[in-house]
């Protein structure tokens, strides 16, 4: 019918083939990338859900039988590791915020013509491989490493003072690793603020602190919101920092999942732990968005 209409409408209306191409264009554009994400992002999560309900072992093979026991067992057995993840990841997010915000504020508002240069300098360290950076922290924080040996030799610190293998080292390492994810969104939202609003506040006799509290900080909240998300989620899940900087009692849930997969080869238990973790994070995320949410999370 459309073909008839097209033929009858005269030469001004594009041919059916062209109109079809126009309608199909967006789908053709998203097909390769969207398909890739479907196959290797969404489908795997489905596979994870299925695996988490299987029972059996590596030698006899696993089969699917709605084994919900993996979940209760996993939660019971590893509750302290789940808690560690939330504690260290949460603390690291707060530390990263406290470090990043004032620096981002100064660079955005007071670095003048050197603004771009400062931002670049702040991001340069992250060109070094993540694993090497964490290793360097291990070297730095060692009990008799370059930071503490001089202080201990001078008698300023007791000989048994240590940071490495404690939660402090893990938290610091996590805050360092994911620092750019806090810094960049905060900087972006601070930079976007219309300077005339700041001037208006000053003209209305707000002092520097009031300007910050009533104008700048509220306007930077979308950046803070995104920064907390982008730092908190990977920090809670990371296990490299804990492995290299933490000690025996600091194991986080990421490590447990990895070991269940790679060492114990208990796929169903590992999958159920990963699933609990994912759903837990999602729930926290939604709650967080409800309480502090702004509309833009990652949108430009």
């Amino acid at each position, binding site marked *: 019918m459309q073909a008839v209409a097209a033929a009858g409408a005269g030469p001004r209306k594009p041919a059916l083939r062209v109109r079809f191409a126009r309608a199909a*264009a*967006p*789908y053709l*554009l*998203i097909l390769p*990338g*969207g398909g*890739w*994400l479907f196959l*290797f*992002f*969404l*489908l*795997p*999560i489905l*596979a*994870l859900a*299925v695996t988490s309900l299987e029972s059996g072992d590596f030698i006899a093979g696993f089969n699917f039988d709605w084994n919900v026991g993996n979940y209760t067992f996993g939660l019971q057995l590893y509750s302290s590791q789940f808690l560690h993840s939330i504690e260290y990841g949460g603390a690291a997010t707060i530390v990263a915020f406290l470090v*990043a915000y*004032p620096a981002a*504020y100064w660079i955005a508002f007071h670095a003048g013509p050197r603004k771009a240069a*400062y931002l*670049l300098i*702040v991001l*340069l*360290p992250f*060109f*070094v*491989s*993540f694993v*090497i950076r964490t*290793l*360097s*922290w291990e070297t730095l924080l*060692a009990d008799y*490493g*370059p930071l503490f040996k001089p202080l201990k030799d001078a008698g300023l610190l007791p000989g048994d003072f240590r940071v490495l293998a404690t939660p402090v080292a893990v938290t610091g390492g996590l805050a*360092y690793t994911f620092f750019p994810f806090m810094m960049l969104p905060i900087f972006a939202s601070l930079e976007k603020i219309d*300077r*005339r609003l700041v*001037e208006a506040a*000053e003209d209305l006799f707000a002092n520097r602190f009031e300007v910050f509290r009533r104008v700048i900080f509220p306007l930077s909240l979308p950046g803070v919101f995104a920064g907390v*998300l*982008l730092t908190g989620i*990977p920090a*809670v899940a*990371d296990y*490299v920092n804990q492995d*290299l900087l933490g000690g025996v009692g600091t194991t986080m*849930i*990421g490590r447990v*999942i*990895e070991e269940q*997969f790679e060492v114990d080869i208990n*796929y169903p238990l590992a*999958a159920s732990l990963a699933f609990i*973790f*994912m759903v837990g994070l999602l729930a926290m995320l939604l709650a967080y968005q409800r309480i502090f949410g702004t509309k833009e*999370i*990652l949108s430009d």
Partner: protein
Amino acid sequence: MAGQAALTIQAKPQARVRARRFRVGAWMLPGYTHLVILWLFMPIFVMILFAFNDTHGKYNLQWTGFTLKWFEHPFAIPTLTSALVSSLSTATLGMLISTVLGTLIALAFHRYAFRGRTILDSILIMNIAASEVVIGSALLTLFIAGNVPLGFLTIVLAQVMFSIPFVAVTVRARLAGFDPALEEAAEDLGASPIETFMLVTLPIIFPGVIAAALLAFAICLDDYVITSFVAGNTQTFPLWVYGATRLGVPPQVNVIGTFIFLGGCLISVTFAAFRTWRNSQLAREAQA
């Protein structure tokens, strides 16, 4: 560019404000920022310093004297070199594929309203926000279920997957300031869709595409968690280094790390300088 204009306009009132601020603790915030920069660079200094360490044992943890010998033979460890080569090749492939696919998605978002737009948008955001352990373990269960042999191929599949959203978001940000009238004008002048894309759209979004490609390359090269899940017996550079932590990390790792760092610095400084030059060029044209 709008931001720049705003900055020049308000240069005068800022001078007034600055004069007042010099009184109260004007050094505190800049001091803090410079301390933060010092903190950020501390492990980098350690990495570079210990590339010059004349260590004799397995462990490169204590300073034992200056040497240049590690720079003479940075590729003396064959397994480390081959890990570096496979890192560079997976990252290059991952970058090329994800840049194309991500850019196509960004173009679709920019030009068309289509069914499933919000769904795709939330999948992109979910992918960026999802934790790597979950993605890695989910991919591994899929590959195990599908009997896919782990190795080079699965690493590339995974790296493209987690790079696409970063590319799409970056290119889309660039497209946001792009006037669609330019494309319409080209089409009115008889350009085919492909000509329009090659001659009008691509040149305009090119800086964004390059930035996205660099970002994709960097995150592919550096990824540890997801890659470690799907790598099988294949070693990439981060995987090799991580595996070596138990046996002692050789100074060659510091040497290669230093080179990667310098390469990254060079590329980003060049890129930033080019952008500054281009902006000033554009500003001059606008004035004339």
